[in-house]
């Protein structure tokens, strides 16, 4: 069973969860995302174990199907939240570099993934966006490690 199908069945079975889901959609994308763990746990109680990221992608898709005008269905906000997480992780590593290492850092490998990020945004495809962003982040982190190795700090 796919995660979205499992979520649909879950919401059909519980009025409380339907009310909760709708409330999250109407509050904000951040609220819907942050509360996804509750849907993941409810699914797990029913024997459907899935990771949080997949639940988040599914609640977003479901918000778009059911409440397309709600804040929870806004792709740009969801994308911004994912970018914020990725940037925070990169910033943590970047901050550990010396000024010389920062100057020497080459992010061209990460930029190669811009097209995939842009295409996912054009299609408002959250799983594809997440995957493209992950590739971008991986390349950027590798650039950080490279510059540290080259300076002999690693």
């Amino acid at each position, binding site marked *: 069973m*796919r995660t979205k*199908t499992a979520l*649909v*069945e879950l919401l*059909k079975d519980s009025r409380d969860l*339907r009310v909760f889901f709708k409330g999250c959609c109407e509050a904000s994308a951040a609220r819907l995302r942050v509360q996804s763990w509750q849907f993941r746990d409810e699914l797990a109680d*029913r024997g459907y174990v899935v990771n949080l990221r997949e639940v988040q992608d599914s609640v977003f898709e*479901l918000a778009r199907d059911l409440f397309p005008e709600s804040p929870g269905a806004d792709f740009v906000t969801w994308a911004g939240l994912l970018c914020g997480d990725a940037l925070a992780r990169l910033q943590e590593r970047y901050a550990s570099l010396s000024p010389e290492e920062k100057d020497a850092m080459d992010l061209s490998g990460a930029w190669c993934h811009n097209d995939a990020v842009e295409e996912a945004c054009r299609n408002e495809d959250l799983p594809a966006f997440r995957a493209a962003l992950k590739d971008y982040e991986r390349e950027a982190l590798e650039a950080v490690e490279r510059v540290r190795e080259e300076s002999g700090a690693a």
Partner: protein
Amino acid sequence: MEDSDGLKPSERKVLEALEKLGKKGATASEWQKAAASANVARRTFYRAKSELDRKKLVFQENDRFFVKGVIGAKEVPRHQMAPASEEVAPSGTEAAPGSIEDLRDLYDEEEGEE
């Protein structure tokens, strides 16, 4: 412990609850209520339901569940059946359109009640 049919007592109770609902089958919530009448807790019900599905002892047509092999059960053409778990890609998030329509109907009904 499983019996000779490979069923745990809770799974047996849940299966019997669906059998008692007859050839018209039941929605998940109707089935759960019937199982609750047989003293099966809600969480136990959903675990047993998943197991019965995995063991292919029940099947789902749209929103209703049926016991496989029940005498008089409605014959469902294969092309109208919900896909079995092995027929569905392991990842992805797409739901059957009918299910979403049912959920949308529930929301519409509840909005009308407010």
